[in-house]
């Protein structure tokens, strides 16, 4: 796994893609960031991160079918790759491990 480092924002987006596997696309991710996580970003930032993750092989995209609802344009949906999932698992594991080592601290 060496060399596969991702930043915090990339991790968040990767998590969102994983949580909405095969249904995730730009606006959906943007809205989750905006509403659920209360992170104000521009949509273009989401696009850039998706491209970067795709390049690193963490996610892959497929083009969705044409729906009448959206004026016949096609949407690009993202799904997580095995590599991406592996990275997420590993990061989670490291975190939990470290977290469990926290002694009981009491704050006065």
């Amino acid at each position, binding site marked *: 796994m060496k060399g596969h480092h991702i930043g915090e924002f990339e991790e968040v987006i990767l998590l969102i893609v994983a949580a909405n596997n095969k249904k995730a*696309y730009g606006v959906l991710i943007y809205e989750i960031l905006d509403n659920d996580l209360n992170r104000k970003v*521009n949509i*273009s930032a989401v696009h*850039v991160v998706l491209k970067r993750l795709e390049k690193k092989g963490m996610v892959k995209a497929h083009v969705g079918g044409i729906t009448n609802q959206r004026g016949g*344009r*096609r949407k*690009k949906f993202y799904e997580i790759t095995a590599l991406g999932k592996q990275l997420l698992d590993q990061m989670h594991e490291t975190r939990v491990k470290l977290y469990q080592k926290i002694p009981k601290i009491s704050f006065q």
Partner: protein
Amino acid sequence: MMQKPPKWARRFLHFYCKAEYLEEIEEDLTELFEKRIEKNGLNAARRQFVWDVIRSFRWLNIKKLNLRIMKFQLMRNYIKIGGRNIRREWKYSLLNFSGLSLGLAVFLLLIFYVQHEFSFDQFHEHADRTFRIIQVIDNPQGSEARVNTSINLASALKEELPMVEDAANFIGGMPSWVGQGEDRLFETGFLLASPEFFQVFDFDIVAGRSDYPISEPNTMVITETSAMRYFNSTEVIGESLDIERYGSFRITAVMKDPPKNSYLQFNMVLSQDMEVYFQNAASWFATWFESWNGAPAKTYIRLSDSAQKENFEAQLLPLLKKYKGPDWEEHPYYLQNILDQHLHSDEISGTLAAFKKGDLGQIRAFSIVAVFLLIVACFNYINLATARATKRAKEVGVRKTVGAQKGQLIAQFLTESFLIIFISLLGSAVLLNILLPYFEELTQVKLNLDLETILQAALFVFLTILLMIVLGGLYPAFYLSKFNPIHVLKNEKFNIKSKGILRHGLVSFQFALVLFMMIGLLVINQQMNFMAEKDLGFDSDHQMVVEVNGGGVRQHFKTIKEELLAHPNISNVSGMTRALNSHREPRSITVNPLGKQTDPLSMDFYGMDEDGLSSLGLELLEGRNFEGVFSKDSASVFLNEAAAKILGEEVKIGDWLNLDDGFNAQVIGILKDFHYRSFHERIGPLVLGYLNTPIEDIDDILVKVKSSDLLATVEYVEKIHNQFDENKVMTMQFLDEMVQGAYQKEVLFRRIFSGAVFISLFIALLGVVGLAAYTANAKTKDFGIRKVLGASELQIMKLQWRDYLKPLIIALVFASSLSWIFLSRWLENFAYRIELGLLPILFSFLALTAVTLLTIFGVGYKVTKENPVKALKTE
């Protein structure tokens, strides 16, 4: 219909975005846009869409240009060489940059201003087919176009003519005290409109009922600013406001303030409920107001898509005839597009304070000045570039020898021009930011330079730069690339003389433009001073004009007058129906000599009490003053000379006139003519009656004060006034300031224009500095030899000056003839004007010559003084 994001933003996205990413980005942005319309409204969504497109402009998304390596490397070389040249000759570069930046900044500023003036009312969605109805009425002084129509016209049009999609009307509200209970503010900007008002006009309603908000009786829409003013909050739906003279109105919606570029400016729109008003008005008023022959309303219509304006105009007259009855004297009506209201309403009378009139002539003048400035700046660049051509000649020779094509050299020099102009553009952006606040203060116009406007202007700026490159860069590029490498490299003298003609031509042209503007400025100044000093025919100094806003003051005027006169610093007090020469036009009445069958004449009317003549210092040529006895005075009038002349021999002192079809008055005196209107207009026929007549009542109190301890006197007047005023607020002005107020347009024009003239003079002088420095440098040896042979320093200086005398003379010829034509036309705007003389031309010429020669002297002094040995040793 589905709302679309701004087309230009989408085009920009298509322009820069890589094809593989385009679909995804566009899709997502569109989806967000559609969601935001519901959440934030259309305008916000459009703004956010634009912002998203700009934010998506990232390296990752941008199309990669397919440049051939070869070309690209050459381009890099061109830029590098250009940069080096800029740095090596930084003094010239600085001259170039400051001239171009300044010229471009002021050019853009003026253009933004012009753009603002032309953008009026475009925000109405169907502006192109929305019109207002104008009627043309004949009166003895000629025909007059008026905006006022019958209150019934709008609904009749909508019902009977299928081509009329919608129609609305409104009337201006009388300035009133507005508020809740005792807590009141004086409100001057409100309209009483028919329910369709918000259907015909697109004013943004931000809260409350958006369709037909004023369809129920006694309802109103308030602007955000006014809501803050009255309630300190914008959540005011359901609240009520009491409006003096009109009754109580309930707020059903809150709207955004009318945009700065709206012809209609108002603070609130009320439903057209006039019952309360009618109760307090004269008995005939309600009948007149509601009849077809009355004309209180401004009527606006929106025609259907397919309708023709001419078609409508043809159908209007039969309809009017039907309603106005067979006795109606037919006169023409026409439609004015609402896009023309702001700039093309000079001929139309019956205006409201709510109308924002612009001045087309002024805008034309500013556009011309803007282009002049840019030309002067670009010519500087051409002159400096060609003058220094010899320095670049060797480089051109070498490049040609190693195989450069002429086209490539042109490309190189154009690149350099572009580089310089681009840097100047950055400089001008900085300057623009510095100048903008001053400019806005000067013009009282808020230029909406937000991101969107600037981006929309980007194309224009781009075209300007292109124009500048063509104007400033093309000639030097062709000129420089023409050199014959053999001559250049063999260090032969090549023909410098040929370019002298062009340079002289350009300098002459620059001087002519600057001189033209200087002469203009002087003449404008002369005319303004003339108006400031010309005798008005009445005394406007130290006259307080106290407005009568309430019934209490009106009723107790006699008591107020007595109490005011008790103050030692108040020498005279008189009541007037309205102040002379103010922004409020005098009332127009019909006059008919009694017992004689003539057509009624239209004349102006003012009323004043028996102290008015002495207070204003009006001169009585014949007859006597009022007697101070109401029963006699109220049926007595004065005529001015102009009126006496029109009425002719038949009317003498003691004769009776029938005024305004209702009341008879006896002529008791003739007054010497005085300027009761601005100097734009001739003195018209005037009837001056007593203060209280059936025609008009007191509306202003004129208080003549002494100059000592003015503040205390004003406070005293205020104290007395407030004892009788229901609202305890006094509004006043000084008469001389009101008189000057008629020339605001000219004052504004003079300010902007003088700024532009000085800047263009400055830029032209920058060019002179550059050229003079170059010549002085190039001719060092020449001067050295002359000095050795015995030439004096003055003679050397004369040699340097000689180059500029011819351009100055040529400029004089062109500028004087041009300015003569333009300025005599400008002066025709004034009924009272100065004679155009030679003095301004002579003075401008001498001033320009003096500063030019001084500048050259400053630049060339060092070379002139220098020891010739030094100059000759250099070889």
